[in-house]
């Protein structure tokens, strides 16, 4: 109930954001856009967060024990060439444990992408890396974060493109015997992010 409300809110937010920034009608100039050094884009992504499993010292496959959740992010990118872009992404996700505790993950990552294009479609493959802040009730921990994946975009205009992302989140949550928790509490979190995306070029 709670999750579905948040999901509906997220979708509504995406629609309102896109609607408020779209031009009155589609651009008539139907030629493939080309990006050069210094061109930038801003993307907003909202969708589902799919916890898959935890890998740990005892078992390489422990069920994630989390509900289907929600994910979202803002990505700023700048182009180095027409195919290669780099950027910074601030994201967030949530999912619920069996007793209703909410796990929040807030990754901050640098991202590099290489785009394959077949106008009006674009298929960027990306790798993000950075830190993820995990919070469960009062517990907070900052972990390394890796996020490989790919996207699909359809160019609505030279400025706007819409599509979807599929990313694999890898979050090694490492405890050592120097920490109170001990090394046996180490787990590598494995998650999937499936989000709808709206990207604006400027």
């Amino acid at each position, binding site marked *: 109930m709670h999750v579905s409300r948040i999901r509906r809110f997220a979708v509504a937010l995406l629609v309102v954001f896109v609607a408020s920034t779209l031009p009155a009608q589609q651009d008539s100039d139907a030629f493939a856009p080309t990006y050069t050094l210094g061109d930038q884009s801003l993307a907003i992504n909202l969708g589902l967060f799919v916890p898959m499993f935890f890998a740990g010292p005892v078992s390489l496959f422990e069920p994630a024990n989390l509900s289907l959740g929600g994910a979202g992010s803002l990505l700023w990118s700048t182009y180095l060439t027409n195919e290669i872009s780099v950027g910074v992404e601030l994201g967030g996700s949530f999912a619920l444990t069996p007793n209703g505790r909410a796990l929040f993950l807030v990754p901050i990552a640098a991202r590099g992408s290489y785009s394959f294009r077949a106008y009006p479609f674009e298929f960027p493959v990306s790798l993000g890396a950075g830190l993820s802040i995990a919070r469960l009730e009062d517990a907070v921990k900052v972990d390394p974060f890796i996020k490989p994946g790919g996207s699909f975009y359809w160019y609505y205009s030279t400025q706007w493109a819409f599509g979807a992302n599929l990313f694999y989140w890898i979050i090694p949550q490492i405890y050592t015997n120097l920490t109170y928790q001990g090394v046996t509490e180490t787990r*590598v979190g494995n998650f999937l992010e499936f989000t709808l995306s709206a990207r604006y070029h400027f």
Partner: protein
Amino acid sequence: MFHRRTVLISLIASIAVLITSCAFEGVGIFASIARERKVLDDRDLPNDLTVAAIDRTSDRMWIAAGQLWHRGFDKVDDLAAGRPEQWTKVAAPGANFTTTNLAVLNDVVYAVYSNLAGDVSGVYRVTISTTPPTLTAVFPAGVAESVERVFVVDATLDGAAGPTLLVSVRTGTNTWRLDGSTDGTTFVAVDGFDSTAPHIAAVGDGTGQVIVVTPKTVYRDADGLKAGDLPQSVAPGGSAARPATAEFTAAHVVENGATTTVWLADDNGFLYSSTDFGDVWVRNTNAHVRAGGNAIRFRSLGSVAAPGGGDPMVVAGTTGVGYRVLGSDASQAIALPVEESNYRESDLSRSTVIAFFANPELKTDYPVPTGSPGAFTREEGYLLFAGAANGGLWRALNQTNPIQWVQE
């Protein structure tokens, strides 16, 4: 240059602290999620109650949690049978009366009530055979004296066979007296237990030895209450002495075969145990600490028998970090319940546990939830109850498999 290096070091230190910081007691975030099992709540008792005392009569369970609550004991814990019997509140003896303490003497419940103004208090006997149950004041007190706690100890009183109901009576600003009764009707002052602090616990071994504890004193009466020699102070001394800043918070007696062990706990991370009823005490050398290094403030003690005749499990409730499982004596390490229990991911693990009660009867074929909705296994063991401050009442079966808690 120096400034840049300082900033860099500070930044690295900050990141290191962030990366290793975690507020849970010894558990990782992902690891705790992987282990988490659904904690069932099978009754409608409010989960924010402060359950300060728990006991049972032959067929009913009782708690003092602001008001007096009760439910049937034996016939209802069957998850397979559907919705179990719910808790019922007993009407207080007057407006703005609350209770935080009870004891059971000869299968009758005695509860301490006091009013909001603090000018009326007393011990009330509960008659359950009437509908609704009625309360009768058996030890009324007013402004001059007030009643704060009742205990039942297995000991004679003035030569009369026990058990004995003890009442801690506040007689002045900093003076307390102990009164006792073996019939719940006639009370007499018990010699030798006058104190400048409230009596917080009393335990007996059934042979005439009684230990009564105040925050800073431990008294022993070795020949029954109000008979023979007066009680003596047997507070732990030497290497087992209570630190000057600590105060005793709980006492409990554990019988394990021929060995009777008295346990004490304090609010500075120390536990004390004695197997000769107070002559020789053992204490942990260094204070037990919680995550972050602060001393654990123990609040309660309890024990529950183990199936198959194993050693009883002795537990100590803490302030804010659930409970710990104690070793064979107070010098031993203490532990969290095993990882496979649903304890570490339950609210109980973050609660202040202020009361325990163990049912001495073996339960067979008792349904224990597995954590999946509606699923349970049949186990054999002894029931342990835990009362939490603002955290409600919890129940678990001490069984061969890891303990699984259910909230009531």
